[in-house]
């Protein structure tokens, strides 16, 4: 007879979290400690020094007494530790203790800051506090987690999700971290838009900034300059259209033509993943800039005066099209392949010609995919920061404008917040359109039964121009990438074209000395930081992404739609917006992490989480649900099922998510540029800094190195994933109710 979980009187998970709570309260420093893992604080007056003291020691010394009530919430669960889960008291005590502890921790954190009370009314009611507190540290973090999971265990014991502790806790955990690191900063940013210079709130301040002519002006219609919002919108629509068309062309060549080098074309899809976004811009400067090869060639041969035509809309448009076409290609290749061959074959047997089949069956079935690719290109273009910065010239877009509002001489947080809101509205609008318009129009043509047919080739009249365009664009892309490499080994582009490894030596030189290697190159610091941060962020991203995907595909619970929307939302939030909102939100207690490596890690987790979620959802929906169910009926609980059935079967997806988030963390720039500090500089922001100093050689050499590093990471993953693939013969089950 199986032992019943509901009748057990020992609860290891409960005991674990009670102990964790006590450790957080009695052992770990409550407030943030710089260089925590150096453990110097252990020798520096711990546990009595108020900077390093755990909460209990602070209270013991009569300090920060407002932390004391949490002790009650830590004590209460001990009361039910021997009770049965079915005992109503068990649930009640845990829910109350968890909710009270967590709530109190949040409330005190927000009410009391570095200048005492944060709210005037609190000061009016309770009087001057005469004390203050800094950002929370590991003690507070562990305590908060303990309260949260005590609470979720209470909820589970009351019977939510069949009393499943793992699922309830996972839902609770994801909700809390997404709220803390996506919704909270965005909300903080929105309020910042209303703050006047004196610190009060005013709608007119917002209105003045929002209706600024620089934002919405229509001067370009009469020969002047348009507002940045229009610039961004116009650019994004163009990029979306062009990348979709080019992506479709590539997808058609790969799946529906006799073209021989399809594998080489498919390799194109790897490019945007491993290329820092602004590198394309750099290469374009090498080609078409004032001293670019093409420009020089034309002025030498035809006597055409070199101009700065590249700097502005044309340059940014070309760069973004080059950068994002592979993304559209990646999306559309799935869509084009997803059109069931038997539909096309059916149309052929119904006497449609190749052209008619393409026009009346294939293309309409691809329509949702095309819209999807357009929206992706639109969002990517809106969010792109590197290319407009490098190539924009006088053509300002929202993302760069935000950057200059916050780092430039004008330093205007309110303006940055308003601009970020406009940008957010555009991308959220696109995101919303994608979900609610396309969501209902799914032409999923995969029927579950094996389709043995082959895709018919394109009609000739279509295939020739398509092939030609694809070749031209692929050739252009190849030239651009060659330029990047070539540019890195040239002394000074356009002036002195001798070959040299000088830039690599400046960036990556090292000496062997006594006691080890001395990394003397200029780039090493940021390079190691980047590797470290990316390596920490990648597994965390994968974990959060996969757990979220598991909840979304395998569990049903109240509010699941809102949950899904919330977790996918950060996909639509441009990096610049994340960057701005993070500095606004995390510069002051209770969460004070600007200038640390933590804020970089956190921003990467939530920037890249949607990718992990999508990858997880895609591969989990290929696993028959009966696998989980049979594990459950065999006596495993949902945690065991997740660990022993789902995770092993998802190993390829996990590796992909890991590598992807690692690589994205290395190439990201838009959020990073706001969050780096002298101590934690990232490779991309270092390179941008070099570009701004016109030190192109070093910048390009560094970029090339990054590309090769990431190429080898991706290649390594291909090898590993290839090996772990498990032969499985999954029989598609019919659902019958």
């Amino acid at each position, binding site marked *: *007879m*199986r*032992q*019943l*979980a*509901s009748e057990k009187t020992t609860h290891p998970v409960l005991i674990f979290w009670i102990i964790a709570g006590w450790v957080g309260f009695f052992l770990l420093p409550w407030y943030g400690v710089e260089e925590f893992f150096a453990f110097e604080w252990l020798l520096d007056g711990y546990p009595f020094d108020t900077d390093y003291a755990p909460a209990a020691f602070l209270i013991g010394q009569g300090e920060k007494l407002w932390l004391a009530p949490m002790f009650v919430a830590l004590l209460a669960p001990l009361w039910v530790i021997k009770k049965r889960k079915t005992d109503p008291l068990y649930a009640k005590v845990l829910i109350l203790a968890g909710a009270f502890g967590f709530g109190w921790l949040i409330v005190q954190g927000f009410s009391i800051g570095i200048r005492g009370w944060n709210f005037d009314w609190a000061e009016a009611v309770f009087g001057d506090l005469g004390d203050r507190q800094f950002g929370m540290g590991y003690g507070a973090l562990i305590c908060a987690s303990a309260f949260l999971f005590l609470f979720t265990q209470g909820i589970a014991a009351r*019977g939510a999700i*069949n*009393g*499943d502790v793992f699922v309830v806790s996972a839902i609770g955990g994801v909700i809390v971290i997404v709220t803390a690191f996506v919704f909270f900063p965005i909300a903080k940013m929105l309020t910042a838009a209303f703050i006047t210079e004196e610190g009060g709130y005013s709608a007119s301040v917002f209105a003045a900034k929002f209706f600024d002519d620089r934002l919405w002006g229509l001067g370009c219609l009469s020969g002047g300059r348009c507002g940045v919002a229009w610039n961004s919108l116009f650019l994004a629509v163009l990029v979306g259209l062009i990348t979709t068309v080019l992506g479709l062309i590539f997808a058609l060549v790969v799946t529906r033509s006799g073209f021989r080098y399809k594998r080489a074309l498919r390799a194109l899809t790897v490019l945007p993943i491993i290329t820092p976004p602004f590198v394309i811009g750099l290469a374009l400067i090498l080609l078409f800039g004032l001293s670019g090869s093409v420009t020089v060639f034309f002025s030498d041969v035809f006597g055409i005066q070199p101009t700065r035509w590249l700097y502005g809309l044309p340059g940014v448009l070309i760069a973004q099209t080059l950068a994002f076409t592979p993304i559209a290609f990646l999306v559309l290749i799935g869509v084009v392949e997803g059109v069931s061959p038997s539909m096309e074959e059916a149309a052929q047997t119904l006497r449609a010609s190749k052209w008619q089949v393409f026009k009346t069956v294939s293309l309409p079935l691809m329509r949702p995919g095309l819209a999807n690719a357009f929206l992706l290109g639109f969002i990517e273009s809106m969010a792109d920061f590197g290319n407009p910065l490098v190539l924009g010239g006088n053509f300002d877009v929202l993302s760069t404008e935000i950057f200059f509002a916050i780092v430039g001489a004008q330093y205007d947080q309110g303006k940055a917040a308003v601009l970020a809101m406009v940008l957010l509205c555009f991308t959220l609008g696109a995101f919303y359109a994608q979900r609610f318009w396309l969501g209902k129009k799914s032409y999923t043509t995969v029927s579950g039964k094996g389709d043995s047919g082959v895709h018919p080739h394109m009609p000739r009249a279509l295939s020739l121009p398509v092939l030609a365009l694809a070749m031209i664009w692929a050739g252009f892309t190849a030239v651009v990438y060659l330029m990047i490499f070539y540019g890195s080994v040239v002394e000074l582009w356009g002036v002195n074209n001798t070959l040299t490894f000088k830039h690599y030596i400046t960036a990556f030189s090292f000496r062997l000395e006594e006691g080890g290697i001395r990394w003397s190159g200029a780039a090493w610091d940021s390079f190691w930081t980047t590797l470290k941060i990316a390596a920490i962020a990648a597994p965390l991203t994968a974990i959060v992404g996969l757990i979220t995907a598991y909840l979304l595909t395998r569990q049903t619970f109240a509010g699941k739609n809102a949950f899904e929307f919330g977790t996918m939302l950060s996909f639509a939030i441009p990096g610049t917006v994340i960057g701005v909102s993070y500095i606004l939100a995390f510069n002051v207690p209770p969460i004070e992490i600007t200038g640390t490596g933590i804020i970089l890690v956190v921003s990467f987790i939530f920037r890249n989480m949607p990718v992990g979620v999508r990858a997880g959802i895609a591969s989990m929906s290929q696993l*028959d649900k*009966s*696998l989980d*169910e*049979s*594990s*459950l*009926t*065999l*006596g*495993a*609980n*949902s945690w*065991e099922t997740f660990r*022993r*059935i789902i995770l*092993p*079967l998802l190993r390829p997806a996990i590796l992909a998510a890991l590598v992807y988030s690692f690589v994205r963390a290395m190439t990201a720039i838009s959020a990073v540029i706001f969050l780096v500090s002298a101590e934690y500089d990232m490779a991309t922001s270092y390179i941008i800094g070099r570009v701004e100093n016109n030190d192109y050689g070093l910048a390009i050499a560094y970029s090339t190195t990054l590309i090769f590093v990431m190429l080898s990471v991706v290649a390594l993953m291909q090898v590993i994933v290839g090996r772990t693939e*498990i*032969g*499985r*013969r*999954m*029989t*598609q*089950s*019919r659902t*019958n*109710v």
Partner: protein
Amino acid sequence: MSINSKAAPVSFRSVTKIYGKDVVAVDDINLEIEAGKLVTLLGPSGCGKTTTLRMIAGLEMASKGSIHIGDRDVTLLPATDRDVSMVFQSYALFPHMTVMENVSYGLGFSGFDKSETRDRAAQGLDLVGLKGYGDRLPSELSGGQQQRVAVARALVLEPQVLLFDEPLSNLDAKLRRQVREEIREIQQNLGLTVVYVTHDQEEALAVSDEIVVMRNAGIAQIGTPRQLYDAPADRFVADFIGEANIIPCEITNVTGETASIRVDDFLHTLPARGLGQGAAMLAVRPTRLKLGAEAGMHMEISKATYVGSRMEYTLNAGFGQIFAVSENVDAPLGVGESVIVGLDAIGPVLLPAV
């Protein structure tokens, strides 16, 4: 040590399952399943049979009512905590584990130590005739073998109830008969309580101690295969279990247990089954019609099909068309011939008019 049975009865008391707000999958059913019996849930798709099965497993939770297994109320227990195993339609073998690991999987959670787990798993495989296949991956087995692994995996836990969700639907026709007999044999040898879902009435008749016919989220009739076939409660059951011709008739007179009926001008007597005078329906299996009888209904042959072992006829009568089979293949009747169709003494049953 051997694999035993801890068979327990299952009882549904006014159980209702509602999906979302108002999709009623199972509507207020009461059901008692005896220990050690093989009970089949049979019905067309969408009738609620799979939902009922999944509620026994704990994969779906009842919206109303209570479910008991043995002497325990399990209504609120999730699948993990119920002593029930299930064999899935898709078998749901874990593709990344060997056959042995698959069969041992559940034992690990049931408190068996390593050597005991190994012994039991080996025994389970032995029981389904797969000794020596332990090191293979599921993908290296045929469909029938995978099916047996799934059965072994469920059996070794000695569950109080063993559930089968259309276990034969992924097998080809020949294998079906064999596997179905094996399942029945194991069930009878070990004395297991088995609940079995199928939409194939022949399969249900062949394996079951008792059949629960379901329709529109409710129970249409419960009975032994013989009861259902020979004495269907209504038109739906008569038509779903085997084929039946439904002929409108009139009960002219009831004396004791016997009713006299009239179809057109043909008179017949048969058990009344509690019906009174007035309109009624007569359900007759195609095999229970006697073509060329001395007394009977006058009909005309509209189609005649030779299918090897017998003849199949479609006949036109005053009340509509009926379907009949005849063993006489040597002297078949031709299309357009008139024929008198009589009724067998046993077989035809009276049903209420509606």
